[in-house]
């Protein structure tokens, strides 16, 4: 492996772009996912693509891979405009996508061999009734004896039994066999071991040396060191920066996050009291380092970290949504070992999950029923629920949280994202939660609602709160103390008034390197 290419290497500037996006705009309803993106992919280069959640990475990938026809702008192959729109059209032009979840690209019940030639069977190229022998022979030609032997893949095995790395190798091989000139790898290392990752990197470099263009997407920024010739950073649907090898991960972080303004408005940083909630020796994964944390009375503790840092894994253990991997907790000085979210709720914890739609909302229920769900007992009169009591409690919360809705009986689905999030927070106030744990509470939430929720978290209605976000700016708005999480480890701690952008960037990538080459 001879990773770092020089500037006149195969991916050098000036080569004809094999694939390019020109002023690509993509709208979903009122949302602008891509706002005029220009991007060139050249033969023989490894192009990194980075960006935070919602920056437009996935959308751009989908446009390039032909899964999505852009609202405006065009995609060019070898300098001439093409209409992709379907994966088949993209494949015909030599563009192949290996998705992050490789299992979605395979039919698990079919054999490995059948999966490799599925497209040819579908096109009828192997005849109406292809024999097993024929399928095996074709599949062997695609995969190659060397790969089958080295990776220990049996052609007769069910595709569903493949490990991620094996499936990935087969998909890459299938794409190349179909004549792919542009290979898009979406988070290819997310499920790979360190060794498998090292092998993939070497393979990617070899492919590039042979003239294939590789678009490589990962949130482990350190992977780009020695791998990528160029890295393009997206933010809010635009290309905001471009870096050439040698890549410095800390500079990528700054580009992804954008300029951080110091404390948006002056507000007091509160000095906290004794510990309310203490975590000792928790781990985000079995192989991750131990995490010790204290949440103190009267503070908002911010946790920030890049995607994959382990924020969600940590918080879900704290609130009893997942079993503890390791370690122990105390709440108000007493042992705290929730086996079910109900245990955490009974002790005064409220959890606002990352994926609101999936984990918190009952969209076809009205605000009243969404708000009172976590604690219905106070609304019982003679064994039955009192509609009046539920409604009164909800109406009060609608007022105090400034929820914009037609009324307490409006359906949750009729509200905007920000107001729905307020309803989820209101659920915990209605349940009498003293300690709130919020995972990405500001995602898809407008600035007004964000400010309202922030003010509420900092109000006396809440004894203490943990707010996790991959956007440090959101954390700066509400937190009294900030913990930086990197690859499951506490990488550092800040007070918001002493935050400095450069050192934050250093901390965020501190240990994202699985393989610093």
């Amino acid at each position, binding site marked *: 492996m001879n990773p770092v290419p020089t500037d006149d290497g195969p991916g050098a500037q000036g080569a004809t772009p094999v694939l390019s996006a020109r002023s690509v705009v993509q709208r979903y309803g009122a949302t602008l996912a891509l706002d005029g993106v220009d991007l060139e992919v050249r033969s023989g280069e490894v192009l990194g693509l980075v960006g935070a959640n919602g920056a437009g990475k996935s959308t751009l990938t989908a446009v390039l891979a032909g899964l999505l026809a852009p609202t405006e702008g065009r995609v060019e192959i070898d300098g001439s405009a093409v209409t992709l729109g379907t994966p088949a059209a993209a494949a015909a032009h030599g563009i192949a996508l290996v998705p992050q979840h490789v299992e979605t690209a395979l039919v698990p019940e079919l054999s490995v061999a059948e999966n490799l030639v599925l497209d040819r069977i579908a096109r009828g190229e192997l005849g109406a009734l292809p024999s097993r022998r024929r399928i095996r022979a074709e599949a062997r030609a695609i995969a190659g004896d060397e790969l089958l032997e080295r990776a220990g893949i049996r052609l007769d095995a069910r595709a569903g039994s493949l490990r991620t790395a094996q499936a990935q190798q087969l998909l890459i091989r299938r794409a190349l066999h179909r004549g792919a000139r542009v290979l898009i790898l979406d988070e290819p290392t997310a499920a790979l071991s360190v060794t498998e990752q090292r092998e993939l990197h070497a393979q990617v470099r070899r492919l590039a040396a042979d003239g294939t263009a590789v678009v490589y997407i990962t949130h482990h920024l350190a992977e780009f060191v020695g791998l990528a010739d160029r890295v393009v950073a997206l933010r809010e649907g635009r290309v905001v920066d471009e870096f050439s090898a040698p890549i410095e991960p800390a500079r990528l972080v700054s580009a992804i996050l954008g300029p951080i303004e110091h404390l948006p408005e002056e507000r007091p940083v509160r000095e906290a009291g004794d510990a309310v909630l203490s975590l000792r020796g928790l781990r985000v994964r079995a192989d991750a380092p131990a995490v010790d944390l204290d949440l103190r009375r009267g503070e908002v503790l911010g946790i920030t970290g890049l995607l994959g840092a382990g924020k969600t894994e940590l918080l879900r253990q704290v609130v009893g949504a997942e079993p503890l991997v390791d370690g122990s907790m105390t709440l108000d000085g007493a042992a705290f070992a929730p086996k079910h979210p*109900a245990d955490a709720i009974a002790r005064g914890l409220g959890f606002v999950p990352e994926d609101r739609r999936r984990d918190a909302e009952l969209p*076809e229920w009205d605000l009243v029923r969404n708000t009172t769900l976590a604690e219905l007992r106070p609304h019982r009169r003679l064994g039955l629920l009192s509609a009046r009591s539920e409604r009164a409690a909800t109406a009060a919360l609608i007022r105090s949280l400034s929820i914009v809705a037609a009324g307490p009986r409006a359906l949750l689905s009729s509200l905007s994202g920000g107001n729905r999030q307020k309803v989820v927070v209101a659920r915990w106030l209605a349940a009498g939660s003293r300690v709130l744990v919020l995972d990405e509470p500001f995602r898809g939430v407008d600035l007004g609602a964000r400010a309202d929720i922030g003010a509420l978290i900092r109000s006396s209605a809440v004894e203490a709160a943990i707010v996790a976000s991959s956007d440090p700016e959101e954390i700066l708005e509400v937190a009294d103390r900030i913990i930086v999480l990197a690859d499951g480890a506490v990488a550092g701690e800040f007070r918001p008034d002493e935050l400095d952008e450069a050192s934050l960037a250093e901390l965020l990538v501190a240990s994202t390197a699985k393989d610093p080459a």
Partner: protein
Amino acid sequence: MTTTSLADRLRDGVYRSGLLVLLAALIVYFAVTLPAFGTPRNAVIILQSVAITAIIAMGVTISLTVGGFDLSVGSNVSFVVMLTTAAQVYYEAPPVLAVLIGLAAGALIGLLNGLLVVVARVPDLLATLGTMFVFAGLALVLTAGQSVSSGSIVGGEPAPGRITEPFAWLGRGVVLGLPVPVVVMIVLGVVVTVMLSRSRLGRLLAAVGGNADAARLAGVHVGRIRITAYVLSGTLASVGGVLLAARLGRGDVGVGGSYLLETVAAALIGFAVLGANRPNGFGTLVGAVFVGVLLNGLTMLNVPYYTQDLIKGAILVGALVMSFSALFKRKDAS
């Protein structure tokens, strides 16, 4: 929704009250054209014809509320019919004990369904399809495939016991001028409807059916709630089984089988009542009565009996279209 055009309101009206209006229109039409239809006596006959179906359908409604589906109710009825009659005829069980055995069996079938779904993680439809077979089979095994009646021959000897009068009263007795099954239907109908719409348990059942992940994170013990739903469903089916055994006065093999489709139809027709578009107790009662009224009237009009299933099926499909078709969907306020 601040401004609504006349067409919108009309559509909304059809959507919300369509089935009730249709039911009223049917009753008026039959009453006008058929002198024998609009009598109190016939009203009681109709209610009696749907009482057992409606009771079992309340259980199906509960299983639908948690997002499940109880296909085993028909076999449950068959099994309970054989169990209660065999207990009395073969083993001389007193009627109260026979009833308790029947209800306990129903609850246990429900518990088994719940455990299969929650602990063994078998999908609802498949789990209850399996137990449907098992209990249809057990109902046969119980009496070696024989029907049970007073004076049945067992091993060459006449069976020692018989179906007693107090037991038969459950099926044939009259309280306040109404047959006992109708009274039970009304009582259980009200209880289940209130439970589903006004009690904490009902709210949690609906939460699990609406979004199980969200319910769990809000502290709902999703597994326990789903098991509870199946136990209630099984118990209500066994109430139907006890009443059926009492009304027949004997244990006929496979007599419960037809109740599966009947009760599922009633519960699904109930989706369309008052625009609920989800399982609801009142709707299920209306669904059962709707089918009863229609069949009663058509029979009086000399429509042959063998067309009944076709008619029930057509009503079900129509009601489902009304519930699910975008045509009648209320638009989201925006």
